[in-house]
């Protein structure tokens, strides 16, 4: 409802698919407004010409639409009461519950001073060896799954979320199908974890541009719990490709010169501003971001995955291993950049070398397979790498394996000893002396 202090204008001069321009004075940059009752935000001011991005799209907006400026930037009411609730992109409940009472917090707020950050050092375990062994995650990290649209990424995300020891899980659903939304809801409910979870959801049925608000909403909630409650917060953002698509729609409407793949030239900064909200605070609170970036045709050189890769601290790939008929976390292309901070320090000392040796041998197996496909004869070593690779996939990489890290390391040593000599494995002697299993 407009109040006496709000300024109301009714002369819309220009309308595009996502924006409209109105003559108005004393308007602040980034300020919220309503256009014809729909939420909008100031994206450009030229003298008294104010351009607004209308989140729900401009369908049906007339030139005499009522434009009301609200005198504030987009915000979220933060408080304990967010827990267990489901919201839309504006932070309004969609679960039938009451509005949340709390402090009004602007979204997309300032960045943490880098000198006030703490180096991430706390291990996150998931029981999945493709993650814990090969691509160990750390609190305060940001990492996406690069996934094909038909891969079970949302299921894996839900598994990861529920297995980690996060105090709080914030789900940012960006263009989720209604089915996936209901899937998350039921998985969280069935796990009895609802009280730990806050969800902001924009489904495919909702307007596209609204999606732009979801990550900021989710991260503002995460910041509240991490800063004020010192909680370990895990933020799930799925699917960030749809977020970037929404960005390009808006920037194209504003006549910005597109750069690669018709994405805005500012894509890197736009994405970085979100992902860099991942942080470990001195006081113990942290924000960890696990996201999904869907690929089209597996192309990681497309501007969206490419810019994401340059921002995040590694990436995880899922792959169906036809040898064992299961989904694995691909050991070649997946990488956790922050694993160095914990492996061999927070985990057993042999972790780094075992991890590397196994991946190297797995790579040798891939070479052997290529040879085989090209019709060449295999050496004895080639044969052994293939046997190793199959067991490695089945006993370690498959995402349905759920064991602790020591067990993963022991398993790897057993596989080494079964298939190779010490020299072929090439691990530091002091470690081999200690961990190489006796003849089985």
């Amino acid at each position, binding site marked *: 409802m407009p109040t006496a202090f709000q300024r109301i204008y009714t002369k819309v001069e220009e309308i595009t698919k996502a924006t409209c321009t109105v003559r108005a004075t004393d308007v602040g940059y980034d300020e919220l407004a309503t256009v014809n009752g729909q939420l909008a935000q100031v*994206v450009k001011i030229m003298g008294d010409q104010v351009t607004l991005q209308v989140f729900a799209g401009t369908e049906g907006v007339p030139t005499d639409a009522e434009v009301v400026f609200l005198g504030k930037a987009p915000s979220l009411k933060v408080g304990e009461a967010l827990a267990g609730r489901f919201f839309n992109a504006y932070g309004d409940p969609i679960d039938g519950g009451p509005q949340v009472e709390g402090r009004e917090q602007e979204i997309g707020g*300032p960045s943490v001073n*880098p*000198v006030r950050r703490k180096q991430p050092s706390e291990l996150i375990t998931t029981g999945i060896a493709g993650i814990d062994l090969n691509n160990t995650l750390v609190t305060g*990290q940001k990492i996406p799954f690069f996934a094909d649209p038909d891969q079970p990424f949302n299921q894996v995300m839900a598994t990861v979320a529920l297995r980690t020891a996060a105090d709080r899980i914030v789900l940012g659903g960006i263009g989720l199908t209604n089915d996936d939304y209901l899937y998350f809801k039921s998985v969280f409910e069935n796990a009895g974890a609802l009280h730990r979870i806050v969800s902001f959801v924009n489904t495919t049925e909702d307007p596209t541009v609204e999606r732009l608000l979801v990550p900021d909403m989710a991260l503002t909630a995460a910041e509240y719990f991490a800063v004020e409650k010192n909680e370990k917060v895990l933020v799930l953002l799925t699917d960030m490709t749809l977020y970037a698509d929404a960005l390009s729609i808006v920037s194209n409407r504003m006549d910005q010169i597109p750069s690669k793949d018709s994405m805005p030239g500012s894509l890197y900064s736009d994405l970085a501003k979100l992902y*860099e909200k991942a942080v470990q605070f001195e006081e113990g609170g942290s924000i960890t971001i696990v996201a999904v970036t869907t690929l089209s045709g597996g192309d990681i050189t497309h501007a969206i995955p*490419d810019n994401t890769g*340059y921002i995040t601290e590694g990436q995880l790939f899922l792959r169906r291993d036809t040898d064992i008929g299961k989904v694995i976390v691909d050991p070649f292309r997946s990488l956790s950049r922050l694993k160095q901070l914990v492996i061999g320090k927070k985990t057993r000392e042999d972790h780094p070398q075992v991890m590397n040796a196994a991946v190297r041998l797995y790579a040798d197996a891939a070479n052997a397979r290529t040879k085989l496909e090209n019709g060449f004869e295999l050496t004895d070593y080639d044969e052994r790498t293939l046997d190793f690779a199959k067991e490695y996939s089945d006993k370690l990489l498959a995402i349905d394996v759920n064991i602790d890290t020591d067990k993963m390391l022991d398993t790897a040593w057993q596989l080494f000893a079964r298939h190779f000599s010490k020299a072929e494995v090439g691990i530091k002697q002091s470690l081999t002396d200690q961990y190489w299993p006796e003849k089985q």
Partner: protein
Amino acid sequence: MTLTQQQTTGRVSGIISNLVLVDVDGPVGQNEIGFIQLGDTPLMAEVIKVMGDKAYVQVFESTRGLRPGMEVRFEGHMLESTLGPGILSRNYDGLMHDLNTMSGIFLKKGDYTSALDLEKSWAFEPLAQAGDEVTAGSWLGQVDENGIPHKIMVPFKLQGQYTVESVVEAGEHKVQDTIAVLKDERGTEHKVSMLQKFPVKQAVRAYREKPRPFQLLETGVRTIDTLNPMVEGGTGFIPGPFGSGKTVLQQAISKQAEADIVIVAACGERANEVVDLFVEFPELEDPWTGRKLMERTTIIANTSNMPVAAREASVYTAMSIAEYYRSMGLKVLLLADSTSRWAQALREMSNRMEELPGPDAFPMDLPAIISSFYARAGIVHLHNGETGSITFIGTVSPAGGNLKEPVTESTKKVARCFYALSQARADSKRYPAIDPIESYSKYLEYPELQRTLNEQIEEGWTEKVNELKNILLRGKEAAEQINILGDDGVSIDTHLIFWRSEVVDEIILQQNAFDAVDARTPMDRQQYMVNKVLEVVATPLSFESYEEINPYFKRVINAMKQMNYSEFESEAFKQNMQELEDTLAERKTEN
């Protein structure tokens, strides 16, 4: 602008993200700094274009809440670095505000802290005396900054000849105290303190000449020092797709390089990577002096979530500080990660100004901007005969990992060392993933460097380096043949050629940046290992069938890898060496 002129002011008339249009009431200069008053908060901004009485400014902050009509004050000068003792060990934002003295966990708009501690006293010792003829950059005195003789110089802004009227005696002084009085040719006196300011986008030219580089800059990274050496005062760049190891490599160089001063510009990259430096540098030792690394280092952090316009400024701020220390006759190493982010910042502004775009929507003058930046590096002979240098290494993050893009291409034209990181090498964990065949150091062709290498390392060194490169090249060809014809379709010799190049690859090229011993290899140890590797490669070996070769060389490589992981000449090192000798003896043929 002189003091008698009135300060130019203006009012905001347009806002598109961080580009703001200002209606001005007087003269403004290109790149002049202004402050926009947002309530009580001054927002720093820089003029990037002027059209009539409209100035286009890029704001170094978020413009949320900014309104048309808000007041702008122009400062009459460009963006400047603040130069004086106390820069080392400090962590700055892109505009040289001290991050540590800012308040709160989150960055606040307008929290512009001082670059230097204005209250700290320094033990000043004079170097000049009354009557000396001096020019910009001449040394007037010095203070001890973390064990480094920090020269107090005639400010770079002073043009022409001056005579020293007086210099204070040795004693404690704060940076703003007058330490000398100079007289110009017209007899006007100028007071000089230990603090001076200089525009960051302007090169300091207080030196006599810039000779060609001739001296190795040791980094401890074998594939650089041995194969494609960097030199004191040289330039190089590291392009590579994401995750290929640019930052790890640059950080290794920043820790290990033989430099007096290291300036790290974290330009539009991850905050956590800067935190690594904050955590490690105060603990780690400078291998050259034994002091803590942080004592020789200054970090300029404009991470990717910090304002975009300040990202562009950050590399200039870093260069300006580097030039200041070079003028003291010091060896400065400047690292920027990533210069692509700086180019992207330029692109964002150019797009907002609706300028005619060049390739990939980058500004047309990008090649010129990159070229004049790299040109500021180099070794210089100062007017007093001393030598100082800035070695500059930047990373480049090419879109899609494709080197045919404007930033990589423009940089390739100006940087003399090219350390191309290969996706394939990174994927197979062959770190550092520098492609040994694509990469080059143009300096290797300099006779003056060849001379110093052969003198300082050993006679015939450069020939050995070429031999290593040949082995790698032939190994690559052999690998291709094996791939096409199959293991049994090629001769045993072809297999041997391949495996000998693998020895070079595994033992010289590959290096584990996270292993305490392997991470840094001093030059004498590199020399030793190169000779060892060449000896292994030259050893005639006999095999009955190609199937024996792979397991045999795995053992050879394993023994030598263990040598790399052991302290040089330790018991373990010698043991592994013995193992290597034994293994070689098994197959060695006499001839």
